[in-house]
């Protein structure tokens, strides 16, 4: 399958066309085509994962999947640690005598993404049969999902940056189509346009970055060649710095990084399965994927091994905090999750920026499961619990009694997101934070910890509003049908177990071993071993986040807990005095964070950043209007009309010569003859 990976992307593409042309004639309006296609892709992706692991194991002499190796015996000489990616390419276009290929580059990173994309996509396909049941554009929705899956897989398997760019823009198109799925309402189409424009603004950076790296690497789009050239520093450091900055702009746009993150919350206008698939698990991580794909460029450009601070880490770090703070002031559960996604993407970008390649990709891997789980959980709530509303304060509350499966899985997802052991998020997030500390990026270690604290706190708040207290909506909430709960359970299982692939605490480092590149990859990347102290701090910080939110939202319960804890009062007066803690947490930290800080951040978001974006749009319109009205219509066009008028005027003057009187003509004639004769006499 490693050699024929294009088939994995091709199947959903065929399915797209099939659904578009024939979908309506099928008994279930095309959804069965989509599910079958993505299911087939998923199976093939699993095969690819197993084959890749085999390839690595064979090359490195390990033996995990020998039984599945089907007699593939490692020959002598293949025991090197260098496992090259499987690259296949066909001529795509040519220019100036150079041929450029389109093809597949399958390595650890690609198979991880193949697995994640096909799995989440399959689950979302199944989920949508219930969630989107009876939708006015059900067939069209499935067609778009298939197109999205195909585009995303095209992006993942790309062996060159140009093909990656193609996939990148196509997923943007699908995002546009699906955010605007219910385009009858202006707000939805506005959100769709906003998403497209904002990411497209980032794409300017990507496009130029692709061009810069193309020339820097000696006129090639090939990813391996670019990484090799970058790591060798071919053409000078400054060139690669420029390329890295441009590519980073692309990442900022696509992966919702500060300051271009504002489109992502608005993108929640789309159907919830779309939010789970595109705006949480897959498309928005395309930026992170790009960062991981051409890591050599960033490594060289930002001198990542130097430590201290660099643009990539800084953007990621700022986004973590900005995103998390904003999540506190949302009433809409999907927006809480959207800001959370922004914040988590910040972790991944920061991870890449601080040299934690494996950790960042691992976080991408785990985050896809638990964030998709949370979004689908929110969808399940709105589907069966709150009458298609996402307002936590008005239409939810107390749902744990009515929706036990949704509640349990949502709790698992939240725990994974908050980074509590033994759930998936703990291992991946902790590894990013730990690597930041080990590589000389101390500031980002603390940012990471602060983010963990905030994450735990806002998820606690969301859970409080959604599942606890009294039911505030109307109607009779009930559990969702199996088509919805099924995917939730599967994702919950992954959220529990996926982290153990790279549980450094028990010295399991399979993820790193299998999926980290060994070719055209910075050799200085280090993998800090687990330190119990650091892990414990991370957990404590997360628990503290839960605790603070808990104390705030269950004020009475918090009161009781601290009262039943007299021992603590002896050692830590500040922490154990419940009055004092309540005051501190409620009035200073939580109220501060929830009130002015978050509001200020949100205000900045809405009134400054958003205003700038809106202003730029309006200003451009105004400039366009001005240019058109004044310059184009008056000056430029005026000049053209002016020339015509000038000719007309001249003609008008000449007109008087043409009096029609023969004698007048004769007089002119004689006069002219006289003048000419005179001239002849004078000059000859």
């Amino acid at each position: 399958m490693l050699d024929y990976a294009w088939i994995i992307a091709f199947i959903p593409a065929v399915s797209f066309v099939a659904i578009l042309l024939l979908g309506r004639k099928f008994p279930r309006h095309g959804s069965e085509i989509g599910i079958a296609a993505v299911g087939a892709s998923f199976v093939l992706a699993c095969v690819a994962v197993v084959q890749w692991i085999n390839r690595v194991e064979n090359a490195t002499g390990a033996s995990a999947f020998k039984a599945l190796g089907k007699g593939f015996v490692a020959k002598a000489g293949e025991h090197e640690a260098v496992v090259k990616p499987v690259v296949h390419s066909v001529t795509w276009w040519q220019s100036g005598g150079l041929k450029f290929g389109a093809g597949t580059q399958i390595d650890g990173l690609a198979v991880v993404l193949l697995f994640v994309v096909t799995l989440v996509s399959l689950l979302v396909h199944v989920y949508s049969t219930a969630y989107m049941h009876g939708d006015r554009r059900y067939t069209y929705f499935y067609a778009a999902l298939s197109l999205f899956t195909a585009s995303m897989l095209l992006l993942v398997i790309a062996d060159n940056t140009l093909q990656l760019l193609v996939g990148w823009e196509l997923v943007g198109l699908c995002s546009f189509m699906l955010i605007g799925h219910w385009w009858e309402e202006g707000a939805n189409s506005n959100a769709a346009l906003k998403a497209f424009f904002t990411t497209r603004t980032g794409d300017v950076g990507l496009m130029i970055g692709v061009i810069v790296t193309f020339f820097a690497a000696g006129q090639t789009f090939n990813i391996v060649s670019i990484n090799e050239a970058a790591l060798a520093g071919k053409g000078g450091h400054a060139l690669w710095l420029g390329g890295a900055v441009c590519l980073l702009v692309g990442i900022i746009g696509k992966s919702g990084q500060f300051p271009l993150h504002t489109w992502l919350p608005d993108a929640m206008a789309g159907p919830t399965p779309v939010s789970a698939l595109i705006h949480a698990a897959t498309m928005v991580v395309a930026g992170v994927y790009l960062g991981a794909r051409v890591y050599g460029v960033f490594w060289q450009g930002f001198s990542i091994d130097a430590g201290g601070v660099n643009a990539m880490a800084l953007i990621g770090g700022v986004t973590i905090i900005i995103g998390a703070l904003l999540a506190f002031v949302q009433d809409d559960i999907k927006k809480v999750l959207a800001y959370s996604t922004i914040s988590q993407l910040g972790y991944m970008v920061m991870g890449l920026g601080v040299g934690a390649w494996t950790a960042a990709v691992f976080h991408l891997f785990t985050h896809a499961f638990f964030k998709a789980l949370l979004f689908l959980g929110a969808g399940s709530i709105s589907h069966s619990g709150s009458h298609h509303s996402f307002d936590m304060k008005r239409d939810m509350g107390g749902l744990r009694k009515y929706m036990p499966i949704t509640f349990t899985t949502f709790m698992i997802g939240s725990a994974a997101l908050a980074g509590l052991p033994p759930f998936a998020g703990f291992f991946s997030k902790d590894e990013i934070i730990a690597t930041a500390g080990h590589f000389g990026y101390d500031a980002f270690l603390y940012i990471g910890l602060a983010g963990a604290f905030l994450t735990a706190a806002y998820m606690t708040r969301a859970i409080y509003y959604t599942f606890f207290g009294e039911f505030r909506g109307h109607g009779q909430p009930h559990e969702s049908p199996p088509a919805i709960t099924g995917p939730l359970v599967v994702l919950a299982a992954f959220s529990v177990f996926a982290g153990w692939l790279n549980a450094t605490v028990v010295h399991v480092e399979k993820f790193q071993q299998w999926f980290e590149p060994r070719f055209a990859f910075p050799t200085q990347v280090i993998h800090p071993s687990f330190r119990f102290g650091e892990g414990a701090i991370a957990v404590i910080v997360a628990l503290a986040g839960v605790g603070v939110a808990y104390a705030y939202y269950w004020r009475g319960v918090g009161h009781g807990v601290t009262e039943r804890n007299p021992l603590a009062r002896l050692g830590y007066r500040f922490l154990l005095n419940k009055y004092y803690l309540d005051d501190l947490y409620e009035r200073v930290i939580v109220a501060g964070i929830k009130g002015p800080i978050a509001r200020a951040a949100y205000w900045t978001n809405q009134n400054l950043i958003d205003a700038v974006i809106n202003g730029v749009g309006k200003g451009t319109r105004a400039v366009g209007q001005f240019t058109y009205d004044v310059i184009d219509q008056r000056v430029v066009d005026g000049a053209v009309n002016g020339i015509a008028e000038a000719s007309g005027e001249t003609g008008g003057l000449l007109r008087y010569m043409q009096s029609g009187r023969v004698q007048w003509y004769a007089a002119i004639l004689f006069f002219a003859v006289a003048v000419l004769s005179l001239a002849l006499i004078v000059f000859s």
Partner: protein
Amino acid sequence: MNWFDSGWGLTMAVFLPGVGMLAVLAAPKADETLQKAIALVTTLATFGVTIALAATFNYDKKGLQLGTDKAWIDVINSRYHIGLDGISLPLLLLSAFITVLCVIYSWDHFPEPHNPKAFLALILLLEIGMNGTFVAQDLILFFVFFEIVLLPMFFMIGVWGGPNREYASIKFFLFTLFGSALMLLSFLALYFIGPNTFDIPKLAALHGAGIVHSTQNLIFAGMFLGFAIKVPMFPFHTWLPDAHTEAPTVGSVLLAAILLKLGTYGFIRIALPILPEAARDWAPWIGLLAVIGIIYGALGCLAQRDMKRLIAFSSVAHMGFVMLGIATLTTFGINAAIFGMVAHGLITGMLFFVAGSVQERFETRQLDRLGGLLTQAPKLGWILGFCAMASLGLPGLAGFWGEFPAILSAYNPASGIAGSEFVVFRTYMVIAAVGTVLAAGYLLWMLQRVAFGTVKPEWEHVHIHDVHVPEWIAWTPMLLLIVALGVYPNIIFRVTDGTVTRLFGG
């Protein structure tokens, strides 16, 4: 098929429409079906001939093929020299292809004052001019075909056009004629100052030898004006929005799809190869006007209330990308420019078709009055969305392959360009890239206002017919081609690259 290869095939491709035109004129006035049938058969036959030419064409051979070189006007040493190479072939095919679709589309879409006989005859006359321009290898012959095009388009706008048609048609005619006059002057200067020949390949092989550098620059300036007005480049573009707005749908399509290409084709075929030194002096300025056009056209679009006028302004922006590619004087840029010409022809042609159909149904093109097209005519709405996406340069569709390599080529323009500083062209590159965002802005904004939202009250009870059969027949090949070229761009790059590398490489 020896006779076919030795110039007769190419001659047929040019003059077969003329036979058709005479037949249409000879057909009885009342029998409209017969006239339409003759026109359709002729254009189809012409297209068939061009396909046969493409099939006979040797893609690995460098230089002109399938042409002939016969005495024509001995007094001025002008010859009937025609031939095909990688640059001409795609454009010839495009021209023959679009004309067929235009005839199909007009089947029952003849605008007022009807008179299909005259309308079809003009389309066929137009085709002679367009096809001839793309195969002519003699400057005088080129000029004649270049000018033949003006007349039918003038009448199409002036007779079948909108309310302000007289102003628009005269503006179109005079503006382009002005440019042609200067261009002819340049041709004559080349003849008299240079080696007394109008033969394009011969002149190109000389690279302007024997002409003083400053004179070369002046001659280039004359050609530049002639071609730049036709393209049209900023600030010579003001005829375009008026002409497009007033022209009948088919006229707009032909204008956007083929006529604008005559200008850019002239640059690639004549101006750059014949006067390479002058081209290097002028390149930074051409590039500057190109990027101004990109931004300016986009800003102009944003201010529009009229759908057709918006698309017309978008042409200014798109041709800016083409000209930017040409201005770099690199193989990348010029390949991109040719691709961009074909892509723009298909995509903007499609957009004008859709705009025409929208106008036919709603009897308005005012964006404020439209809305909810997807509800009333979903297929038409989706086709509009598809074309908007293609036009904004979405990868995977044809538009991307004109834009991206053009922007790419600006990073590394040809050596020897005046000033020779990369900074200038790299600035152009960034501006052009920003232009792609603006393109997304105006096109999606238009899409949102026309297709999304709910139906406006005034149209609520009006029956809006979705796409008609003639529309399907005319549009499907274009839509398929847009996808095919986008997915596998080598269809065109493979054809053009050899010739472009020969003329501009190294």
